[in-house]
C-alpha cells in the first residue's frame, strides 16, 4: 500500500457487523483507497475504549456515542469534534405486544431490564418517567440483564416487564421471536447520538484527510439508503465472519436486514433532524440539546459553547457531500459484484 496514507478508525463496538455502513462500505468498495488512504476500521469494544485509542494516538477517528463526545469535552478537557452525526438516540422501551403494559403509565411498579446500570439509556428513561409523573427511583425497578439470551428470557419469564435497549438490540430481540411494542419519549429522537469524531488537532493537522474520509462516509450513506440489501451482500462478502449463523440463508439475511434497518432508521432521523439536506451533518443546536439534557440529568456539571463540538472547516458538510449522488445510487442499484 505504498503511497497511501494510513488512517485508523476505532469503533465503539465489539462487533463490526453490517450496521456501520458509513464505515465499512468505503472500505468494501475501495473508495478511500482511491482517495489515497489506507483505512483500517477497528472494533475496540465500547465508546470509552474508542476514545482512549484515539486520544492515545492509535486511531485518527473514533465512532462514539454523543454522550462520550460531550463528557470528553466538558469533563475531561479532550477536544473531541463531531465530524458527522450518524444517528439519534434510538433507545426504546420494549414490552411484549400482548402484555399488560400499553403506555408509560403502566410501567408503575414494574421491573425494567437494562444492559447495565451504567448505560446511556437510563438518563432518558428517568426523564421520560418523570415527565409521565412517576418517580424513577421508587416507581420502577431496574435490573441489569446484559445482552444476548438473558434479556430475552427475562422478558419471556416475566422477570422483567420491559427492556430498555438501543434499536439494533431491539431488532435482535425481535429476530429471536419476541413480539414487541416499543415505547419511547417523544424528545428522544431529537438528540443526536452516534458520532463519527476526531480530535481538534487532527483537523488542524490534516483537514484534507478529515474531509476525504468524511466524504466516503457520506457517499456510503447515500449508497446504503438506496440499497440496504446491497450493503448486506457487500458486507457479508468482505467480512464473512460477521454474518449471522444458525439458520437458513433467507432467515439470516432477513435478520441482518432487520438489524440494518434499525440503524438506517436512526440515520434517517438524524438526517431529518439536522436539516435533511446533507448526509452526516452535525449541528451545534443538536449537540447543545444533548448537552443541556445531560446537565439536567446530572451527567455533566457544566456546559460549554455547543459550537465547540463542531468541525471548524468552512462549509464542511457541503464539501463532504460533494459527490455524484445519482451515480452512487445507480451503483447501489446495480450492486457491484465482489
Amino acid at each position, binding site marked *: 500500500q505504498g503511497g497511501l496514507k494510513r488512517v485508523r478508525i476505532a469503533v465503539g463496538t465489539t462487533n463490526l457487523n453490517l450496521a456501520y455502513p458509513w464505515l465499512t462500505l468505503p472500505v468494501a468498495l475501495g473508495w478511500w483507497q482511491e482517495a489515497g488512504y489506507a483505512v483500517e476500521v477497528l472494533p475496540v469494544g465500547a465508546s470509552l475504549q474508542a476514545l482512549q485509542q484515539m486520544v492515545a494516538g492509535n486511531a485518527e477517528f473514533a465512532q462514539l456515542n454523543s454522550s462520550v463526545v460531550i463528557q470528553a469535552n466538558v469533563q475531561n478537557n479532550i477536544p473531541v469534534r463531531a465530524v458527522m452525526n450518524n444517528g439519534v438516540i434510538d433507545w426504546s422501551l420494549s414490552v411484549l405486544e400482548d402484555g399488560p403494559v400499553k403506555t408509560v403509565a403502566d410501567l408503575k411498579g414494574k421491573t425494567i431490564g437494562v444492559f447495565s446500570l*451504567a*448505560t446511556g439509556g437510563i438518563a432518558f428513561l428517568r426523564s421520560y418517567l418523570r415527565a409521565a409523573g412517576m418517580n424513577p427511583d421508587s416507581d420502577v425497578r431496574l435490573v441489569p440483564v446484559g445482552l444476548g439470551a438473558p434479556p430475552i428470557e427475562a422478558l419471556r419469564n416475566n422477570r422483567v416487564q420491559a427492556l430498555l435497549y438501543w434499536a439494533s438490540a431491539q431488532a435482535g430481540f425481535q429476530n429471536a421471536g419476541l413480539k414487541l411494542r416499543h415505547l419511547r419519549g417523544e424528545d428522544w429522537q431529537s438528540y443526536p447520538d452516534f458520532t463519527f469524531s476526531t480530535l481538534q488537532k487532527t483537523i488542524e493537522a490534516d483537514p484534507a484527510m478529515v474531509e476525504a474520509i468524511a466524504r466516503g462516509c457520506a457517499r456510503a450513506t447515500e449508497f446504503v439508503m438506496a440499497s440496504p440489501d446491497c450493503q448486506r451482500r457487500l458486507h457479508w462478502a468482505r467480512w464473512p465472519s460477521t454474518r449471522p449463523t444458525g439458520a437458513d440463508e433467507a432467515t439470516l439475511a432477513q435478520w441482518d436486514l432487520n438489524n440494518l434497518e434499525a440503524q438506517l432508521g436512526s440515520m434517517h432521523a438524524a438526517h431529518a433532524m439536522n436539516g435533511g439536506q446533507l448526509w452526516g451533518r452535525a449541528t451545534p443546536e443538536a449537540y447543545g440539546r444533548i448537552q443541556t439534557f445531560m446537565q439536567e440529568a446530572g451527567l455533566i456539571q457544566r456546559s460549554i459553547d455547543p459550537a465547540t463540538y463542531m468541525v471548524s472547516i468552512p462549509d464542511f458538510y457541503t464539501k463532504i457531500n460533494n459527490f455524484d449522488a445519482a451515480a452512487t445510487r445507480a451503483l447501489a442499484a446495480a450492486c457491484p459484484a465482489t
Partner: protein
Amino acid sequence: MTIPRGRLELLLSILLFVVFVLGWEAACVLLEVPAIVVPAPSAVAVAMYAGLASGELVTHFWVTFAEVLLGFVFGAGAGFVLGVLVGLFPLMERTVYPYIVAFQTLPKVAIAPIIVIWFGYGMESKVVITATIAFFPVLANTIVGLRAIPREQVELMVAFTASRWQVFRMARLPQALPYVFVGLDVAIVLSVIGAIVGEFVGSQAGLGYLILQRNFNLDMAGVFAILIILSLMGIGLHLAVNAVQRRVVFWMASSTDRVMGA
C-alpha cells in the same frame, strides 16, 4: 549487613513503592500519557480520597469482598474436595478430570449469561462465577500434591494396616498441603478477578459495578482508585492465605534456609 533483614525488606518495599509512584507520575507528564488512558497518581489519590470520604468505595468494597470470599470458599472447597476424590480414586483422574479441564477452559464471560439466568441477578451469580474460577488451581494442585508422597511413607502407613482413607488423611493430605496452599494462593487472586468479571456481566453493586459506572462517566482516576483497592484486597487476601499456610504447614517453616553458605 548491619540492617536487620526485616527492616531492609520493609525499607526496600517502601522505596519500591515510592519509585513506582514517582515513575508513574513522571511517565504521565513526560510521555504525555493521556489522562483518559492512565491518570496521574495524584489524580487517583484525589479520587480515592473522595470515594473513601463519601463512603461510596467502602460500601461497594464490602459487596465485592463478600463475593470474593464466598466464591473463594465454595470454589476452593469444591476444588479441594474433588482433588481429594481424584486422589483417592485414581480411576477418576483419567475419566472425570478431562471433563473438568474442558469445563475450565470455557471462558467465564461466555457462560456468564447462563449462570445469570440460573442463579439470578443478585450476589449468587457472582459467587458462582467466582467459584468456577477459584476452583481449578486448587484442584490441580491438590491432585498433584496428593501424589507427591514418598513411597516409604505409604509403605509405613500400609504396614500398620492403614486403610486407603487413613493413608490419605494421615500422610497424603499433610504431604499435599504445601501444594494445596499454592493452589489457594492462586485461587484467591483469581477470585478477585472472578467477582469483578461477574459484576461486569450485570450487577447493582460492588466495585466492578462501580468500575462500569465510572467508565461510563469517563472518570478514569476514579476507575484507577478502584483498581488500587482491588490490588490491596488481593494483597491482603494473599497475605492471609500465607499466614494460614505458615501455621498449618509449620514443619516446612524456614529451616531450609539456614544451611551455612547456601
